[in-house]
């Protein structure tokens, strides 16, 4: 049944993005907001809005019971979770299922399966997706971890089986390290996730982070090519590209095909991303995890393929088949996205919210700015610092980097600090311009003082 009334259980720029997609499909939009977010752009744009609790996310955007009640009270037939908050919370999906409201995303069982690193890895291996050599299942003791580490070879990475977002990851160079770190990792996993299960895999040195966008309707699945997201600080992506220039055609085809195999194997519904580490030396790639949500960096994929991923999610959630066949998905040119955060990059990235006193947004062919700002908007301090994403699309990567510089120079946001100076420095850096970086590149570059006033 096509969705007619869509409830948006998120905030910030992604709420704006979802409202735009839904309204263009003729869908009535209902925006949830906390008391601190009553003036946000998505509330102003939505057809109606509903307050779901106080500023603290735990009592508003993370309150499963409260959100389900609000969705029922506003007669929503579907809920879009955006990213973060409840986007990968199987309990939330089950609570919606119980009252007959559609969740725009995969089933609770798929979220559970893909959210558990060990189960996801097993599903990937079964579908023929290469994985980093590592433990076959959960590890409960340090001695078990040492046995596996000896097999796969040091250095090894220790992670919480239930973890995510890079939290709690440790790298052991040798057995002594591992014997010290495994109990710590276990205690931390227990404290953070209520589950002390660990898993362990070989640490790939200086890898690239490459991910594949997939779409599924439960019967079939397609890929929309890959993204390159190696530019990271504290395991948070900073700058993202589509496609990954470092891949040759054979490797790209293999990478994307295996991603589709996994999506098909789990009867995936919605938009999802398979994340891989890529070793540029050996041209080998290894699956690390699957994200069962729309991602922050989805616009670069939209720019090179022309597919509206958010609309496609809404369609398949309403029971329709995918509107694109694999052979119709073509990639054109190169796209780059930078994340604009309300942070001062010259002061250790200290968050710097405030009031947007004035702003100028660049426009022109190949420039897109997804954001939630307006002049006079008071950015609340309670949520993450992402203000928006500046996206460019051009014929070649070199032209895209140049267009990014033009767009960044045309973007002015007054009254707050932003990460614009970081992105300008990156776009002008010879290593970035020659596409010669990896996931461990940005932090030493910052530590070496490459970013100056």
């Amino acid at each position: 049944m096509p969705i007619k009334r869509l409830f948006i259980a998120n905030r910030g720029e992604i709420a704006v993005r979802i409202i735009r997609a839904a309204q263009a499909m003729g869908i009535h939009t209902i925006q949830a907001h906390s008391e601190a977010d009553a003036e946000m752009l998505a509330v102003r744009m939505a057809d109606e809005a509903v307050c779901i609790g106080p500023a603290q996310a735990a009592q508003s955007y993370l309150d499963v019971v409260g959100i389900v009640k609000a969705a029922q009270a506003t007669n929503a037939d579907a809920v879009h979770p955006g990213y973060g908050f409840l986007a990968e919370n199987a309990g939330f999906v089950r609570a919606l299922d119980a009252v007959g409201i559609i969740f725009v995303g995969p089933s609770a069982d798929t979220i559970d399966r893909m959210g558990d690193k060990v189960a996801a890895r097993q599903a990937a291996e079964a579908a023929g997706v290469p994985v980093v050599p590592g433990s076959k299942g959960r590890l409960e003791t340090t001695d078990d971890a040492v046995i596996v580490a000896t097999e796969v070879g040091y250095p090894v990475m220790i992670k919480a089986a239930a973890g995510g977002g890079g939290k709690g990851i440790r790298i052991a160079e040798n057995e002594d390290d591992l014997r010290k770190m495994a109990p710590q990792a276990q205690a931390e996993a227990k404290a953070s996730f209520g589950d002390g299960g660990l898993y362990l895999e070989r640490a790939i040195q200086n890898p690239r982070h490459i991910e594949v966008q997939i779409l599924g309707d439960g019967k079939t699945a397609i890929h929309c090519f890959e993204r390159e997201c190696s530019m990271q600080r504290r395991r948070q992506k900073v700058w993202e590209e589509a496609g990954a220039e470092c891949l040759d055609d054979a490797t790209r085809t293999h990478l994307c095909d295996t991603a589709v195999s996994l999506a098909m194997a789990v009867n995936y519904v919605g938009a999802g991303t398979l994340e891989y580490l890529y070793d540029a030396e050996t041209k080998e790639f290894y699956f690390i995890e699957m994200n069962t949500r729309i991602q922050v960096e989805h616009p670069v994929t939209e720019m090179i393929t022309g597919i509206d991923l958010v609309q496609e999610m809404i369609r398949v959630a309403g029971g329709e088949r995918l509107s694109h066949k694999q052979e119709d998905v073509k990639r054109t040119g190169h796209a780059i996205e930078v994340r604009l955060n309300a942070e001062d990059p010259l002061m250790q990235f200290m968050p710097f919210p405030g009031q947007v006193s004035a702003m100028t947004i660049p426009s022109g062919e190949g420039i897109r700015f997804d954001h939630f700002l307006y002049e006079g908007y008071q950015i609340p301090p309670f949520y993450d610092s992402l203000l928006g994403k500046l996206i460019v699309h051009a014929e070649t990567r070199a032209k895209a980097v140049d267009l990014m510089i033009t767009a960044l120079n045309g973007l002015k946001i007054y009254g707050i600090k932003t990460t614009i100076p970081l992105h300008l420095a990156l776009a002008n850096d010879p290593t970035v311009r020659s596409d010669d970086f990896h996931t461990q590149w940005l932090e030493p570059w910052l530590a070496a003082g490459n970013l100056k006033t």
Partner: protein
Amino acid sequence: MVAIQSPVPGTFYTQASPEEPMFKSAGDAVAAGDTIGLVEVMKTFIEVKAEATGTFKGYVAGDGAAVTAGEVLAELED
């Protein structure tokens, strides 16, 4: 009397976690550089440090209070 102000807007905390004691209590000696509280801003915790030496008079902002940049969090007596 010296007022200690919040460097950023956010949520103020007088203790590092609910199980920990308060950073300072009335009458405590405070050295410049001592942490007197935390402000959570955009999911980041910023330590609020005393810029002067003195004796802690008390917190002006309560634990868990929403504060603005420049708001007085605590006071020191000379």
